[in-house]
């Protein structure tokens, strides 16, 4: 990530736009923008795992479920302040993520992906097993429902705080270690990086982010948590978001979050992607395309085009892409 945007320009710019948006958009579109904020948090978190550490997870919807149920249950049983429940969801998912990361650190690549897939399938079953506390398939309804602007504010404030936190974590030693694990585990060990520790840590952090996103997701769902909301498709959506985001720049993650947050809500009058079926096909094709052509994600597109053009113009060897790795 040497070619990162000058944060002095882009971050205040994006923040400025986000502050103004609710004054311009209609209430419903503010809500859609809030949904993007929810997915921003989740994609940002998953990106720390997939983009920086090179581990694939197709189960992070499970952490959104844990975070979401934390919010719904705390609010239902104790009328806890919703903002506080986001913090608790973050903390719980950090711990659960670390615990899951312990055995998972023995796995990598496709094996880790399969283990996380199991997580995506099993966690939404828990409310059905413990229906007395978790409401079964009838779901858990928080007594508090918030308006669209409130949800928007919460989603993007949490986004801002967690973006800052990610930046602080990733800019220094930890971030370097993550990338070392991604680029070559052997080289990382040789350089004195404790692979197990950093893989587990990355898993914990990404789980915590998805936990906070899950809490926001439930708040955006009028305080309602139900197992079907956190199905495998949600986990896959997050992965698609992370794939679109590529190697986490702010813009990449914004694009990834907008992609998964907005695409399902496109007007049915738009051809092909307006229908659920057409959308599923587009999802699939895009992921294949992103994986094949753009290992750096959508955010890597300009660089990729540049390198192609350079190759055509000067007949020289294409420049090796940044982030074209992850096993």
């Amino acid at each position, binding site marked *: 990530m040497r*070619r990162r*945007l*000058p944060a002095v320009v*882009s971050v205040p710019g994006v923040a400025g736009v986000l502050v103004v948006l609710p004054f311009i958009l*209609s*209430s*419903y*579109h503010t*809500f*859609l923008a809030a*949904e993007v904020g929810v997915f921003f948090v989740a994609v940002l978190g998953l990106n720390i795992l997939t983009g920086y550490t090179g581990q694939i997870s197709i189960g992070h919807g499970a952490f959104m479920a844990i975070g979401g149920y934390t919010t719904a249950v705390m609010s239902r049983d104790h009328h806890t302040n919703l903002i506080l429940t986001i913090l608790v969801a973050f903390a719980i998912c950090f711990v659960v993520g670390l615990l899951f990361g312990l055995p998972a650190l023995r796995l990598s690549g496709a094996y880790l992906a399969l283990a996380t897939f199991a997580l995506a399938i099993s966690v939404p*079953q828990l409310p*059905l097993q413990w229906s007395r506390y978790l*409401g*079964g*398939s*009838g*779901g858990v*309804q928080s*007594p508090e*429902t918030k308006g*669209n602007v409130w949800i928007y504010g919460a989603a993007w404030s949490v986004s801002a705080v967690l973006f800052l936190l990610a930046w602080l974590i990733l800019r220094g030693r930890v971030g370097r270690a993550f990338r070392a694990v991604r680029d070559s585990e052997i080289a990382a060990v040789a350089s004195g990086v404790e692979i197990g520790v950093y893989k587990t840590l990355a898993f914990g952090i990404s789980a915590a982010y998805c936990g906070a996103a899950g809490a926001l*997701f439930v708040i*955006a*769902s*009028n*305080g*309602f948590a*139900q197992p*079907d*909301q956190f*199905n495998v*498709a*949600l986990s896959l959506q997050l992965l698609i978001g992370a794939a679109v985001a590529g190697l986490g*720049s702010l*813009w*990449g993650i*914004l*694009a990834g979050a*907008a*992609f998964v947050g*907005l*695409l*399902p*809500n*496109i*007007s*049915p*009058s*738009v051809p092909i*992607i307006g*229908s*659920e*079926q057409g959308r599923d096909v587009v999802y699939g094709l895009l992921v294949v395309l992103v994986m094949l052509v753009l290992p750096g994600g*959508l*955010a890597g*597109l*300009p*660089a990729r085009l*540049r390198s192609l053009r350079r190759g055509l113009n000067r007949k020289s060897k294409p420049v090796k892409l940044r982030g074209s790795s992850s096993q």
Partner: protein
Amino acid sequence: MSINRKKLGALLGVVAIGIAVASTAGAASQGSPGVTKNSITIGGTFPLSGPASLYATIAGAEQAYYGYVNAHGGVNGRKINDIVLDDQYNPSKTIVKVKQLVENDHVFAVVGGLGTAPGLATWNYLNNKGVPQVLLATGDAYWGTCTATGSAFTPKPYCSKPKPWTMGWQPDYPGEAKLYAKYILTNKKTPHIGILYQNDAYGQNYLDAFNKALGSHTGDVVDAEPYNFTDSSTVVSAHVQALAAHGANTVVIFATPAASIAALATITGIKAATHGAFSPLTLLNNVSANRVFLIAAQGAHANVNNVVSTTYIKSQSATPKDSAMILAKKIINATGNAGLQQQFAAGDNNLIYGLASAWTFVDALKHAGATPTRSSLMKALRNLNETGANRNPFVFPGMDVKTSSTRTFPMEQLQFEQWKGQTNACNPNTEVNCGDWRKLGVVLNSGS
């Protein structure tokens, strides 16, 4: 330079999606939302795709009926515009789509939304906003038990506040389950009951009421097997085998179509394997008893002869000469939708369900005053009286659609029926006698 392009690429993507989203233009109006001088806009969410899309024809039939009413001048000069959105039976999608209907499309009411979990996911929101959530296409007890206001309201685990804007339409599942329990106790000498139920609020609703109705005979239940909505037919089969292993001679199925088809095929399979030793009396809940599902089960080598179920709407295949069924055919044909026409010919009863439910909505709208408001619509729906000359033509003969301050479920009657037909695969489009439901006994009261 490079930075700007990168920025631009991502930004363009976001903007493109944003524009596409924004193209769902909303129409603001004065007075009641969704009501203008010559139109009323309503909306609903249905699984138009995904595993529950077998129900999509309900939405098609409702739109067909509104089209028919519009062609005949609408209601009080207003044409009904019905926006149907696909939620894939996924509550988190329902939440967003319902928000879209209310806040972006400014619908007058959310009518006919399908599914228990989708309904539960949105009833808080709609009741807080005071938007009618009516004629829900689900028979759970929720839709009639939380409507009382003031001191008459008793909080339940699933509703801490009253839900005066919510209302169902079809007979409730607990009432149906109760009738099955009675049927078994009257018709089976020493019943050993095995139950297959969907492991969610829907299946639990049936199961609890069934057990309650058995009363002192709950010991007759030898096994109750839960399956999940997303389970494959192999998993469902294994559950049915477990019922047989527990020695069931009566099987009760509280399922949704895909699972019930697998279960019926498995019962036939075990029967053949045990040379008829396992030959249970089979009861099928009416959600799964649509004729097309039974024909599909026959296609999966199930012998569904003598399966028992219930109904509350007319059948276009069993009574094609009925004047309402002739009208139904005309309405469906008028849509020019080949898919709907084909389903109608195959005997898809959900089409009649959709027509009947839309008939009730139009009936309520007629009684909601010259310029309907959301509260006048609710008042009309809480005082339905589809009896006598105002009888809903699409519901089963002799059944009333009625509500009052003490009666919160519009339909409280059921008719038992039994399947008679050939025992192997049959194509209803080319073969005349593929089997159908036959009336069994008289119309019964399913109310509590």
